[in-house]
């Protein structure tokens, strides 16, 4: 293995230690696996809890702050957090206005979050769940509720956080967040595998010069392997699939996002972004904002994903609000 770690058992906790030390002015540690923005719970505001397995940093750990989530809860690398930790997170976000659980649709996460939601409700906390399921490759549109959540995460979280920050009611925050999810589509391609830090095992094998479309964030099998395409060809394939899926149409206004999975250079991301702009212009789809970076990683996996979110006036208003989290800042 090529990773700088200490004892494998301590990874998740030590990484959160480091995160809190790095951002001590703006975040606090609530429990071993739970962090919150310093002010949480915030009186009069709907609480937003995000979380999932660790190892995808900055997702979810670092997306707490103004215009983002209140609390993040993490499991071990690639393993959903436990119900007791999630319950602690819900309590830390709860200011009596309702708490939204916002996370990616994976079996393990749903099992653990649902248990915690039950426990919290038994304590009288109002809790509802919104699942993120933007990844299009694994299931056709008719089975969208089975789809996984991936790289739309931080913009969905931002819109949810901005809506909550605006003082919107629990029902409103849930509605707006669901709308953000429903209008998001993502697809990615992997060019290099990653290793699990606990064991040093690779999550999958992929020969040099090959690529796989639809590879999951934990090495879940994708839908198509082929020889490495150019940046332009890659953008073409990803965009064609995404645009057809919603479908996005001429006249739509979108956020155009390129995410790097870990070992991808920003150079590569900029090349894909360049082509995406030409593509969307040709289709008559307007770009409200472009985002490029590592928002959701799978350790040092190589490759990129493309995410489009279609905006209406309401989503645009919340998207344009400021965000100030360690992992995502937006200055309006």
């Amino acid at each position: 293995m090529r990773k700088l770690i200490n004892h494998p058992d301590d990874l998740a906790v030590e990484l959160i230690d480091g995160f809190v030390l790095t951002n001590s002015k703006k975040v606090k540690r609530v429990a071993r696996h739970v962090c919150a923005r310093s002010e949480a719970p915030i009186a009069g505001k709907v609480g937003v809890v995000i979380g999932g397995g660790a190892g995808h940093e900055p997702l979810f750990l670092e997306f707490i702050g103004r215009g983002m989530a209140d609390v993040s809860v993490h499991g071990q690398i690639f393993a959903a957090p436990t119900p007791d930790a999630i319950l602690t997170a819900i309590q830390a976000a709860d200011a009596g206005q309702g708490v939204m659980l916002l996370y990616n649709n994976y079996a393990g996460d749903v099992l653990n979050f649902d248990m915690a939601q039950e426990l919290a409700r038994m304590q009288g906390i109002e809790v509802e769940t919104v699942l993120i399921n933007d990844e299009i490759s694994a299931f056709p549109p008719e089975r969208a509720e089975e789809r996984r959540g991936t790289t739309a995460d931080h913009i969905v979280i931002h819109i949810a956080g901005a809506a909550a920050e605006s003082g919107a009611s629990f029902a409103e925050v849930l509605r707006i967040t669901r709308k953000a999810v429903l209008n998001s589509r993502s697809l990615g391609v992997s060019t290099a595998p990653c290793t699990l830090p606990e064991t040093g095992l690779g999550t999958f094998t992929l020969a040099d010069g090959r690529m796989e479309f639809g590879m999951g964030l934990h090495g879940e099998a994708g839908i198509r392997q082929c020889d490495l395409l150019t940046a332009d060809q890659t953008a073409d394939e990803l965009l064609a699939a995404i645009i057809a899926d919603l479908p996005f149409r001429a006249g739509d206004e979108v956020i155009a996002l390129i995410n790097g999975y870990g070992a991808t250079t920003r150079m590569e991301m900029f090349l894909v972004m360049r082509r995406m702009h030409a593509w969307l212009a040709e289709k008559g789809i307007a770009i409200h904002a472009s985002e490029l970076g590592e928002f959701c990683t799978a350790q040092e996996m190589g490759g990129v994903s493309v995410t489009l979110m279609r905006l209406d006036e309401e989503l645009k208003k919340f998207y344009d609000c400021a965000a100030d989290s360690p992992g995502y800042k937006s200055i309006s």
Partner: protein
Amino acid sequence: MSYTGTDFRRSAAAITSKISAECMHLCELDSAVGDGDHGTTIQRGTKAGLEKLQTSPPASLSEDLSSFSMGMLSSMGGASGPIYGSFFMGMASAAKGHESADAPLFLAMLKQGLAQIQKIGKAEAGDKTLIDSLSPAIQAYEAALAEGADFATCLQKMTAAAWAGVEHTKSLISKRGRSRYAGERGIGSPDAGATSMAFMLECFANTATGDKSCAS
């Protein structure tokens, strides 16, 4: 012969050391189609469950099963945390009010464990999950009991059937968890959770019958 709280504490210790010994093997199985962490996850869970037992005062069989379940639930996460937590919680609830389990009660405990797994996880036999070792194991146990076999024999049949179930998972296409995306590419590999479940059942059988070979 009956299965007491003390027996379960011995089972828990045996399970924990067996799982530790097989940790990398279970990770490799999970890595073929999943994310490669089943070994470390279940190791963390069994260690936490055992610690919970070791730091709590002597208690009933049901209370000990429940403590072990809580230890797993609050340490594992992932898909297998709630699944295994539910399994032991189901066993605990069937054991409630009993000092120890005889062969029929142990069957009821296993069945209740399976029921809890299915209640939370919604998987069916054939979905390539740990149900595919647990369910045939329970059936074999029940058939042996119906034929009048003694407790030890029931447990032996259970273990053999669990491993046959593991073998059978090689031919299945996963319908649950991360491995479902592999589709037909998963054929040929046994399910990681089915394998860890077979190790657990084997340890139950060995400690119940006094065989220490599992506590290596």
